């Protein structure tokens, strides 16, 4: 049983990572590896699609915190999209909307990157 999976989709103007299932201390390392690979390839514009994410704990939130500084220093960003009410509430509880743009649609998040560049 490993009810977490992710899908990477290199689009323009950003890479979309779609998360599915449960993002907790057990599954967060997989997301961490994926973002690390992106940085290694010089890709720093990232949209996280949360549409199929059922659950997130602080271990999952920590992954976003862990990379955001480096990514922004390199002129990129992490934008979040399509969070369910349940997942959004956790972000909200921690004040993440102050730090990250959380868009309702993946397309909007991609558009925000187009506007940036």
């Amino acid at each position, binding site marked *: 049983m490993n009810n977490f999976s992710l899908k990477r989709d290199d689009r323009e103007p950003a890479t979309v990572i779609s998360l599915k299932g449960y993002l*907790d201390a*057990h599954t967060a390392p997989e997301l961490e590896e994926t973002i690390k690979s992106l940085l290694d390839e010089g890709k720093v514009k990232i949209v996280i699609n949360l549409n199929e994410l059922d*659950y997130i*704990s*602080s271990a999952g939130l*920590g992954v976003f915190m862990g990379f955001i500084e480096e990514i922004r220093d390199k002129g990129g960003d992490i934008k979040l999209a399509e969070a369910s009410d349940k997942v959004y509430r956790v972000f909200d509880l921690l004040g993440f909307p102050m730090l990250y743009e959380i868009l309702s649609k993946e397309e909007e998040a991609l558009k925000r990157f187009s506007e940036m560049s």
Partner: protein
Amino acid sequence: MNKITDYKLKIPSKTDNLELIRNFVAGVARKVGFKEDDVSKIELAVDEACTNVIEHAYKNEKDKDIDLAVKIDFNKLTIVITDRGKSFDMKDIKMPEMEKYLAELRVGGLGIYLMKTLMDEVDYVVRPDGKNEVRMVKFFLDQS
């Protein structure tokens, strides 16, 4: 419900088991009448507490035991999580001021903050027998 009802779970200390723990506690909370909103809060608080036991008390040694008890009495649900690993003093842990925390882009240190935000009471004690105990309470309030 007048009598105290007890559910107990003993489970090996690996993050792989967090999902089982969450599902079990969420199942009990739902069964005794908490609404989905509160079920989610209880589920997340328990995950954070058990993650801390695995990572900090047991330093990721697998196959140590986590003991989890869920007690139901007439006005509240109490979760007690017990470990035999490294102790700490919750009073030493400074609660982040979230605005400042985020501005500084810090990593980690959100677990206890979440537990305290999600639950009505959170205590941590080192028991006389040397075991550590996290105790969290959620009251039944206008649950329907």
